[in-house]
Every structure is written in structure tokens, then in C-alpha cells.
């Protein structure tokens, strides 16, 4: 106690004297509001622009000067999600008379094309979802258990182990992709969902253990001990008492893990081909034939962004507290 108190020198704080200077608070508040609005606009414009482009007809997306007002169209999305073939003159006339065409077919027809199937992007999005969700669930599950053990039990060599776990994260992805590629090809994990899930899980785990240990350390042990004395087993106490209180940390870890798995590019590019290929390596390849289809690219980016937004907002309630309290304070 002595050492602690001697270093806690109370700084002299003059900031409160500012109120004597008497700036008119109305003006100050207005200025603050204007600056805030400007900052928000500055950061949101690219996102809004992307959203607008996704709904522009192909030719409106490349006009100079850019159009701010336009007739919304789903051309970009249709082109993103389908495979089409060019129709010749005779077929065109025939198609124009058909009445059984749905809205997507109509849009394709305007480009003189016929939809002949799903594009690869759909299956890549589904791959991304399967791999990201599974690896996130697995890494958070294992990490909570590991973090609880590290936080509560006496483990020989605890500090070394924790460092070892973190060291998993130290090598940049590009350095290890080639060896992993060789190993995966040998054991048949190349271009498989399982391979990608294992890889992402082990990558996320190190970071997740550290993050969650910080959160669990902050939960007083008295909570569990009270439950132990009240007639519950360690595992029941963990499930009923620790887990609900660790929700903030779990939410934050979930979001971070999901974002990593969802966005990962280098491994996905090297270790998948088509069966298990995820969306990130594919998005740059959306560039269509005959000119850049900006609407299609924007639509692809939008489709890719939505799951992250959903996951983040689903955890919003926990996250706000988690990120500001646990993560930052515990570092």
C-alpha cells in the first residue's frame, strides 16, 4: 500500500478555471456539432457512394461527371449473382415476346443476355459464411475454456504457456502460407472447408485466449466461490455465473474473430481453388468482360460487408461496454 500511495501524486487541476473565462456555451456547442457532422460526412461518403453505385445501372456508374440522382436498378446484383450468355438477334426477338420471364431475367434481357445459372460468387459467399462462422464458434468456445483455466487455476509454467500461445500469432501469414500449402496438399486438406476452419481457428485462438483472459480476470472469484459453497459444481458455477458475466468479452472476441476469418485474404488465395474458395480473393476478379462493371463490384462489396455489419450489431449491446472497459483497460 505504501509504495502505491507514494506514486499516486495528485495532479493539480486547473481545468475548472476555464468556466470563468465565460465562452458562450451555445456558440461552442454549435461549433462542436458542426465539426462532428463534417467528420461523420467525411467518413461516411465512401460507404454511401459504394451503396449508391451498387444500385446504379451499369452505364450510370461510369458517367462523368458522376450522377448523384439516378433510377435505381438491380443490374449490379444480377450480374454479380448470375452467369449469363449473350443472346443473338433472333433469340433476342424471341425472348422479348416471352411472358414467363421474372424480374432478374428482364434485367439480363436489357443487356441482351440470358441467365443460365448462379455465378461462382454465391458459392464463395456460402463458403465464406461456413468457414468464418464455424471457426469463430470454435475459437471462442475453446478460448473461453482455456482463458478460464489460465485465469483461475494454478498451472505450472502458466506465463510461458501464455506467451507461447500468443507467439502463434507473431509470424505474418505470408511467411507460413507456403509450408502450410505443402502440408495441406500432402494430407488432403488443400481446398477443403475443414482445412480453412482449422487454420482460422488456430489463428484466432491465440488472440482470443488473451482477450478473454483479461475479461475473466476481472470477474471476482467470490462469485464462483459463493456458488461452490451454495452447492454447485465448478462446471455449473462456470456455466451459470462466469459465462453470463463474461458476455461482454465473449461478444468482443466473437466480433474480432469473425472479422478476421471473414476478411482473410492471403491463406484463402493460396490454400483454396474452387471447392472451398472464399469471397475475399474473388472480389478483385469481379471485373467483368468489356469494361469495368463498377455497379457489380460495388454490389459485391456490399454483399461482402453485410454479414460483418450483422454480427457486429448483434453483439452491439455487449460490445460497447466490452471494447471500452475490458479490452482497453486490460490491454
Amino acid at each position, binding site marked *: *500500500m*505504501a*509504495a502505491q*500511495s*507514494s*506514486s*499516486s*501524486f*495528485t495532479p*493539480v*487541476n*486547473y481545468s*475548472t*478555471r476555464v*468556466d*470563468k473565462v465565460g465562452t458562450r456555451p451555445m456558440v461552442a456547442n454549435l461549433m462542436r456539432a458542426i465539426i462532428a457532422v463534417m467528420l461523420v460526412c467525411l467518413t461516411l461518403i465512401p460507404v454511401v457512394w459504394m451503396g449508391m453505385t451498387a444500385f446504379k445501372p451499369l452505364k450510370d456508374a461510369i458517367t462523368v461527371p458522376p450522377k448523384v440522382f439516378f433510377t435505381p436498378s438491380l443490374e449490379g446484383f444480377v450480374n454479380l449473382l448470375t452467369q449469363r450468355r449473350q443472346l443473338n438477334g433472333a433469340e433476342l426477338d424471341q425472348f422479348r415476346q416471352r411472358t414467363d420471364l421474372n424480374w432478374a431475367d428482364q434485367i439480363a434481357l436489357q443487356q441482351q443476355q440470358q441467365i443460365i445459372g448462379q455465378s461462382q460468387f454465391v458459392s464463395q459467399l456460402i463458403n465464406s459464411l461456413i468457414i468464418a462462422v464455424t471457426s469463430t464458434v470454435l475459437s471462442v468456445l475453446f478460448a473461453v475454456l482455456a482463458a478460464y483455466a489460465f485465469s483461475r487455476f494454478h498451472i505450472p509454467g502458466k506465463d510461458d504457456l501464455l506467451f507461447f500461445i500468443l507467439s502463434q500469432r507473431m509470424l505474418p501469414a505470408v511467411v507460413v502460407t507456403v509450408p502450410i500449402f505443402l502440408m495441406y496438399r500432402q494430407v488432403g486438406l488443400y481446398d477443403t472447408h475443414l482445412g480453412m476452419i482449422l487454420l482460422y481457428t488456430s489463428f484466432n485462438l491465440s488472440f482470443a485466449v488473451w482477450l478473454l483472459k483479461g475479461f475473466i480476470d476481472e470477474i471476482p472469484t467470490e462469485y464462483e466461490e459463493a456458488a461452490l459453497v451454495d452447492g454447485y459444481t465448478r462446471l455449473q458455477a462456470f456455466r451459470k455465473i462466469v459465462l453470463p458475466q463474461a458476455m461482454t468479452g465473449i461478444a468482443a472476441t466473437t466480433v474480432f474473430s469473425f472479422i478476421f476469418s471473414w476478411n482473410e485474404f492471403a491463406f484463402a488465395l493460396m490454400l483454396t481453388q474452387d471447392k472451398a474458395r472464399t469471397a475475399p480473393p474473388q472480389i478483385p476478379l469481379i471485373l467483368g468482360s468489356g469494361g469495368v462493371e463498377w455497379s457489380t463490384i460495388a454490389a459485391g462489396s456490399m454483399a461482402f460487408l453485410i454479414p460483418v455489419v450483422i454480427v457486429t450489431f448483434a453483439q452491439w449491446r455487449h460490445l460497447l461496454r466490452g471494447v471500452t472497459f475490458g479490452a482497453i483497460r486490460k490491454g
Partner: protein
Amino acid sequence: MATIELKQVEKKFGDSFAVKPLDLTINSGEFIVLLGPSGCGKTTTLRMISGLEAVTSGNILFDGKDVTWLHPSARDIAFVFQFFALYSHLSVRDNIAFPLQAQGMSREDIKKRVAEVADMLKIEHVLNARPGGLSGGDQQRVALARALVRKPAAFLMDEPLGALDAEFRESMRAEIKRLHIDQHATTVYVTHDQIEAMAMGDRIVVMSNAVVQQADTPTEVYNNPSNLFVARFIGSPGMNLIEGHYADGTINLPGDNRYSVPSGWRSVLETQLASDRRVIVGFRPEAVQVDGTGEINSTNYATDLHGGYTMLHLQLDPDTIVHARAGRDMRYQLSETVRFTLKPDMVRFFHPETEMALKQNGMKN
């Protein structure tokens, strides 16, 4: 040494008052204690006197000179913090010398002065040590030495004993008080501990909810609290406060008890109570006299030894417990009947609506 005057000093944070307009004169050489629960405005008041906090309105005068907008360093005050605020990278000697170096005093004079205060506080043996290694008591002595060394116009102390263990607190309390008697420096001392306030203060300023409830000598605050808050807050336990109805010289108390009001108070109650005749009877635990023929009837709820005396907790009804101080050999079984009377000169009465003490003619205020 300075006289400190606060004139209609107030502090607002946004729309809420930290301190409502307050008038207070602290005489030169006086030891004033600002006492109250956390959030009552006592620390804010102290910080306004020091200049660490700006007043929202009102004036602060040192010896008649307006210092309201002076920088803290220009007010010639010394501030002692709860957490000592010692510089851990400097030796004790340099910590004490620090304020003098700031004044540009010569080396010889500094040495002489540091030796003087070190002797006064009996910390010569730790002068070369770093503050981190010292006990809590010694750290606070060093902090006091650093305050004393400058001979400031006033000492401002913010819960200086709050961080000490109970065993040091009692003796440090006496040391600080004795130091004040020898130095006679104007001192403003903030605490939430009513025992500390009683033991140390020449006068106590009891605050609650940003308002001064009473400013008076310890004895007066204890014996004649101005309202229910002060009656409850001062004393351990606080004053017994029991509501009843007054009629014809007696008050009906819980548990079918009747209390005969001392004759000197009857006219006061008759003129000052509202038409519903409700009144709160207040008496300290030592005003209770256990007496087999006493008019008030109770059962023993709990009895406990406090070392030199015993405290009886007597139940009038399930919601009313009276604390009574008694000789240490008084022992009762649980739920045993105990009858008692009240010492007539130690009974006080309060108005249940205004919560203010009723005053007899000739009483102060």
C-alpha cells in the same frame, strides 16, 4: 496566520449545486472541520478555498483581501492530500525542501528550516529515505512537514487520515491536533468521520446536500443538533429519534408507551408543533437510564460490550429500536423486559415536517 472569509460562495456543475451559497468566517488560528457524507460539498468547498476549483459566484477573502481569482500558488496556502502526494523519486529531505526551493530560498536557510520541521514531526531518522518505503503514518508526517515547512497562511487538509490504518489514525489525529495547538495555524480540515471532527475541531461545519446544516463547537453540535440530519450523523450510534404524538404534557410513543415531557418543554411543544401534534423525541444513548420503575417499557433486542461500557439495543416495537449506554455489567436475556427513563436535561425535540430542532427560550440560536 490568516482569517478566511467565504461570502455567498457557491459552486455549480451544470445545473446542480455542489455547494449552495455559503457564508463562513474562519478566524485566524482556528481549526475548522468540514464534516459530511461523501458528495455533501465539503471537499469542493476546501478546493475553492485553495483555488484548485473556481467558484461559480461569491467571494473568498484572506485577511480581508479578495483572493477569489488568485492562482493557488499566490494564496500562500498549504494543501495536505489524502494520498500524501509525495514525490516518490525524491528523498524525504528533498520532498520537504521542495516548496522552499520553489520560493528560491538559500541553501543554508532551507537546511535549517527542514531540520526544524523534521524535529517537530520526529522524522529526522527517515530524512534520507525514499517515501515509498515508509509506513503510512510516516508518509503522512512527511506530507505534513512539507506543508509546515513554508509557514503558510493557512493549512487545508483533505481527509489526511483517510488512507491510514485504524491503529495509526488515532495517534496521528492527536499529533495533528497537538501540532495545531503549538503552531496555531489557521486550518481547514475535511473529513467524513464524525469522531475525527469532534476530537479535532475548534468548530465543526456539518454539511449535507451542498448546504451547511450547522456550524458550531463540537459540544454544541453534539448536545444541541440543529436538525435531524446533524442529530443522526453525529455520535456513534447517532441520536435516538422516535416519532410520537404530543397531548397534555405527554407524548405517545411506539409500543403503547407514554413519555412525560419535562415541564420546561411543554409550552414550547404547545406553541411550535403543527396541528397534528406530531413530534420527534431525540435523545443520546447516554440519556437513557435503565430503571425498574421507568415509564418506558421495552424488550432487549441485543446487548453488546464496547470495552469500557455496554450498549443495550431496546425494542419499543418491531420497527423502533433505542440504543442505550449502560454500565458494562448490565446483561439481559434476549427479549427480556427492560424499563427505562430519560434524563430530562438531555432530551431534545424536533419538528417532523421541517426536521428542525425546537428551541427553548434562552437556548442558542
